[in-house]
């Protein structure tokens, strides 16, 4: 199997994967490569900034104070007189997104775009049984502070979900084995991720400094 994950300057992520399948597979056997969520996945969502967004609160200006007084809206006046209340007071026309930082102080969250894309390779039936790649994406999306890197390791890393799912009933070659490559974009910041639970994975990427890297094993 071969695969590629790309992020372009517009922020779109794409994953492309192609394979001849499993050596000596039964005719008609379908693997994880063409199965959405098993061997490939890409998705994006809007979430509130995961950093404490308090710094986003802008103190009121004199003009806005006059404006809210002229509007006579008590909330606006309160918010301006008692800034600590500001985050509770919905500003007219603005969709209010409140998040709680770890002190449980409701703060107005800044919305950012979060996107992930991944390609899997290895024992296809294991990826199918665990719905591996979408599971990693879901961990990244629905766990408040899980990076895609940690999600990929939970699935395809040593002792990860894939390895645990390998039923030693059949003890077939390669059961539970595989690796995942991916890219995560949070706001404007992107990260290349990968992990695998077997001997090696042929992979090449451009790192944060623009250098081209190649590895097969870990710790090369």
């Amino acid at each position, binding site marked *: 199997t*071969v*695969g*590629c994950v790309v992020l372009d300057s*517009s922020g779109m992520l794409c994953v492309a994967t192609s394979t001849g399948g499993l050596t000596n597979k039964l005719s008609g056997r379908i693997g994880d490569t063409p199965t959405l969520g098993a061997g490939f996945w890409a998705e994006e969502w809007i979430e509130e900034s995961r950093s404490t967004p308090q710094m986003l609160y802008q103190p009121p200006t004199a003009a806005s104070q006059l404006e809210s007084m002229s509007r006579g809206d008590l909330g606006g006046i309160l918010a301006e007189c008692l800034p600590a209340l500001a985050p509770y007071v919905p500003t007219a026309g603005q969709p209010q997104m409140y998040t709680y930082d770890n002190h449980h102080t409701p703060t107005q969250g800044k919305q950012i775009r979060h996107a992930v894309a991944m390609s899997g390779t290895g024992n296809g039936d294991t990826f199918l049984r665990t719905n591996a790649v979408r599971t990693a994406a879901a961990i990244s999306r629905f766990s408040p502070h899980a990076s895609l890197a940690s999600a990929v390791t939970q699935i395809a890393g040593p002792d990860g979900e894939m390895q645990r799912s390998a039923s030693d009933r059949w003890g077939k070659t390669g059961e539970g084995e595989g690796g995942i490559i991916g890219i995560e974009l949070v706001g404007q910041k992107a990260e290349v991720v990968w992990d695998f639970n077997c001997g090696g994975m*042929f992979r090449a990427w451009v790192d944060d400094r623009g250098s081209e890297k190649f590895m097969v094993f870990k710790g090369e």
Partner: protein
Amino acid sequence: LIKPRIIVHGGAGNITRKNLPPESYRAYRSALLSVLHSASNLFSLPDCTALSVATHAVTLLEDNPLFNAGKGAVFTRDGANELESSIMVSNGYRKRGVGCMMLRHVRNPIKLAREMLTREEENGGGTQGHCQLSGEPLEHLAEAWGLELVSPDYFWTKKRWDEHMRGLAEEEQEQSSSKTPSIEEREYLPQG
């Protein structure tokens, strides 16, 4: 603007320093880095998209018999090639993701996946909005869309044929004897 990024893979499995001699390591290294370099160069083009770059990279990998995709694909137990491909984007296309399977004559399955994803939007593609298609009906669409079709022996390579024969012989041997080789002793056979 966001800084473009790219990563490629060429397979994973029971690869060890024992069953991957230095010359094979160098061959994979040179192949993957040249694909990465060629694909990264596309980022400088004005109309470059993640979809075009990813399709370009995987097309090059399919054309390289070193990898289990396109030319150099592994064989089924019946000695045939059944190719699969997929593409998915984080936004921009209604279908979002597509899967192609049971292909035997399409030279670059990844180009077919890209057509399946994009045609629905542009000119009613003829896929009825389906996300997964397989076999002859899909190959007829590939022909209608002007993709290159080849005869099945285009995909044949001696290396994969030998793996196919060895794999069958090994299975037979394991069934007849109780001893099965340890994972380290086994050859790295592409798992898909």
